């Protein structure tokens, strides 16, 4: 399969910036406010709608999404996003103001309640909040819940234990919540070393943050022993939901002993990632932690016996007794949650189980086909290959010329020149064979030839060092001599 990405050029640049096409400076004086309260003028691009339509169409053409081809980025779960969830989320009655009284948004609240219930079932959790607007915000919510729980019990705990293979967000989240991070080295099999964990955990441990299967695609088989070690020390077990796709309908964090977890709906439940968000990061907890959830929380309300409205049911917001407060100004990324609900309802039990089956089959099949060394195993939904003598970044740029998006590179750091690959369930055998062929072709490249790659993408290799050394972060600060008019 040959592939060339669209490329619109004009002079020494790709599609010009809007401001390079036309700007207009508007005088803001003489408006409805006194001059001392207003700015003097405003200069912005000034183009007609047809020109804008063409601009953004060209930009879209110079961009790569899941409908352009596979994006096997490890730990990102970039699966196909069905179109119909966009349609249902665009329903006019979904577009309501967040300050409406509960009675006038019963449909919205019931949908939230149903999604909370679905997620609780999938995670084996007792209660779920939908408020965190992304996975990292979910982590922050979960760690704040753990902190509030310990404080409520009079415990002063200062550290969070995190394996060296964990997502960077885990470390950043723990630090943001004011915790000292204890990094846990992986064992020779790429998993948590229970002895090392015992040594790392003590009366200061607030929580262990764990991804299972971990970022190497390996299931932590000793999870019950891990849970015992953490719980015996009085800590809580936090589940990073980034890799939940591998376990749908087959294993549940709650059953493994996790006390608190987040879900990445933009990964597991196919809500589009939108070039970097929005996502949503609902958090599930055990009964013991439910009173610490962010406020407000949605519950089903039943009219009390003997009172007006007895026997009728509705939905309402309430503030959990020991709530950590809020993690989003309103109730989270609502439109994303509607899409997640639609996706889960479409799949049901059988679809969820089929998802994890094919995600795991695809990863293991692809791992068999590629020419690079794949340490550890057996794999769940992803694997980490080592590019060995090749630079993983060069391998990635080489793969771009084969019409595929490359894996996550150089991470986790415990594998040399890591190529962290997660094909997801939505790639066909034909697509996986093409991915394997791209790996093969790039692995066969002689030393140095990959330094020229990519040649068929919109842009050639970009000078990222230069971009960081001399940051140019807006059109106002670009060299004006570049401007076309």
């Amino acid at each position, binding site marked *: 399969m040959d592939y060339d990405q669209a490329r619109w050029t004009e002079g020494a640049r790709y599609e010009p910036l809007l401001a390079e096409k036309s700007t207009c400076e508007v005088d803001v004086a003489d408006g409805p406010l006194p001059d001392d309260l207003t700015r003097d003028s405003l200069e912005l691009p000034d183009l007609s709608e047809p020109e804008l339509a063409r601009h953004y169409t060209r930009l*879209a053409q110079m961009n790569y999404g899941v409908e352009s081809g596979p994006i096997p980025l490890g730990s990102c779960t970039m699966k196909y996003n069905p179109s119909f969830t966009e349609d249902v989320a665009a329903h006019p009655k979904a577009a309501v103001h967040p300050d409406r009284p509960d009675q006038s948004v019963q449909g919205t609240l019931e949908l939230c309640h149903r999604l909370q219930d679905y997620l609780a079932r999938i995670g084996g959790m007792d209660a779920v909040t939908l408020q965190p607007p992304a996975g990292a915000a979910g982590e922050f919510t979960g760690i704040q819940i753990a902190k509030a729980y310990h404080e409520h019990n009079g415990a002063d705990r200062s550290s969070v234990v995190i394996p060296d293979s964990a997502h960077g967000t885990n470390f950043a989240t723990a630090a943001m919540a004011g915790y000292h991070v204890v990094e846990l080295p992986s064992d020779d099999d790429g998993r948590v070393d229970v002895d090392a964990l015992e040594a790392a955990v003590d009366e200061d441990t607030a929580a262990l943050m764990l991804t299972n299967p971990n970022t190497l695609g390996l299931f932590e088989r000793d999870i019950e022993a891990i849970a015992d070690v953490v719980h015996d020390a009085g800590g809580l077990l936090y589940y990073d939901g980034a890799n939940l796709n591998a376990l749908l309908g087959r294993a549940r964090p709650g059953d493994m002993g996790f006390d608190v977890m987040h879900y990445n709906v933009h990964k597991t439940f196919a809500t589009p990632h939108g070039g970097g968000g929005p996502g949503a990061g609902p958090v599930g907890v055990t009964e013991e932690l439910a009173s610490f959830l962010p406020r407000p929380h949605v519950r089903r309300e039943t009219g009390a016996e003997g009172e007006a409205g007895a026997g009728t049911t509705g939905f309402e917001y309430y503030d959990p007794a020991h709530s950590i407060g809020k993690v989003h100004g309103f109730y989270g990324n609502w439109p994303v949650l509607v899409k997640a609900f639609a996706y889960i309802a479409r799949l049901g039990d059988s679809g969820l189980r089929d998802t994890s089956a094919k995600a795991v089959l695809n990863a293991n099949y692809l791992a068999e086909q590629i020419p690079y060394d794949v340490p550890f195993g057996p794999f769940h939904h992803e694997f980490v290959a080592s590019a060995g003598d090749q630079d993983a970044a060069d391998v990635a740029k080489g793969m771009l010329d084969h019409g595929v998006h490359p894996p996550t590179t150089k991470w986790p750091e415990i594998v040399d020149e890591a190529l962290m690959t997660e094909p997801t369930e939505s790639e066909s055998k034909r697509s996986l064979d093409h991915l394997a062929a791209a790996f093969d072709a790039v692995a066969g490249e002689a030393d140095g030839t990959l330094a020229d790659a990519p040649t068929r993408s919109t842009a050639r290799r970009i000078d990222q060092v230069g971009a960081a050394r001399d940051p140019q972060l807006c059109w106002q600060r670009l060299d004006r001599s570049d401007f076309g008019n």
Partner: protein
Amino acid sequence: MSDSGPPTTGSPYVPHSPAETQAMLDAVGVDDVEALFDVPDSVAFDGDLGIDARSEQAVRTEIAALLGHNADLTEFLGRGHYGHYVPSLVEDLSRRSEFLTSYTQYQPEVDQGFLQALFEYQSLLVELTGLDVANCSMYDDATALGEAATLSQRVRSVSGDRILVPEHLRDGKRAVLENYVDGPGCSVASYPMDDGCVDVEALAAAMAEDVAMVYAETPTARGVVEERAGAVGDLADEHDALFCLGTDPVAMALLERPADVGADVVVGDAATLGTGTAYGFGLGLFATREEYLRQVPGRLVGASEDAAGQRAYTLTLQTREQHIRKERATSNICTNQAWVALRAAMHAAWLGPDGLVDLAEDCVTRPRDLAARLDEVVGLQAPVHDRHHFREFVAHVDQPARVVVEDLAREGYGVHAVGDHRIQVCATAQPPQREAGFVETIAEVA
């Protein structure tokens, strides 16, 4: 089959034929896919989740029926979430799958389109704020404010752990701020307001060496145009505290430039462009001065050059970010609101400078006119604050506000109750022609 879609005995989004599945199992060397699951029996789940699979059409019908339980309400609601009209161009082009289904731009050579759109978004905010640097999004205004507070902890030259905020602050913002500063161990305290604007003398009295950041808003939570932002900036400057100003892109098109009133950081919700009413779904705006560049949270897009000598864009200064710096990152943010930022940039481009200024002027004249009409209603005085307003205003009602709000809701209109005898009305969320019915109705219930 009368229903739509393939049978739901598995995932409809899995492309494998039985023959392909078998060929792959053979290649892997197992008889059954279950053999690939390395999950101990003791924690394996073999139960039923009890979630029925439905056809696409059935799900669509179900969600429409659920949302049908939402009342028809003509919303005169604001207080941080606004329903400006979003042009079709934005709806249509932002949904192109190359934008919608793409990932964070870790391979910039194939994601030039999104990177350029985000660069244009950052540029829009630089022009509007007058500051040097804008990131390409936070979750919402509340989380952006939280990030500003933690930034103030990192950059302030002397130690300080107090964040000052106006007494008129939406609870959601304050609660999120308190969560964000819990880790660094800061406290949040409020300073008084005077007829809807900052009480500068009271603020001056509250200033001390332990203040790390002073936050003010324009428009305020009560819809008042803040007339004393410059004085707040001066006070912050005198005490080596950061001045963080909360606002939004529509307001900035008309009001004094944040840079000109001494703002060190600008936060707010940029979802006033490009999103419309979406149950509090936001777009956190974050801009600051060049000297804090390396302490900025979140993603930054920069212009560079590719091997062909063409200008090209890339994520840059990533050593601030969690995936590189881990616990020493400036923030834990990873997934942000990139697609919402794309929509805001598209909406601003569609409006152009004239259109954006016109929209901002409507946000002044429409509440002014509506307040004047309500002021003529018996039992109502509007606006409460003798100030200029933006989008919304507070009105006094002789009846208990709760009763007025409930009566209005029964008649199909939504306003906020913000005090025992105060309601807040947003005039820009609805087409102007809806205002006549609203005024008639409130005259009956107030």
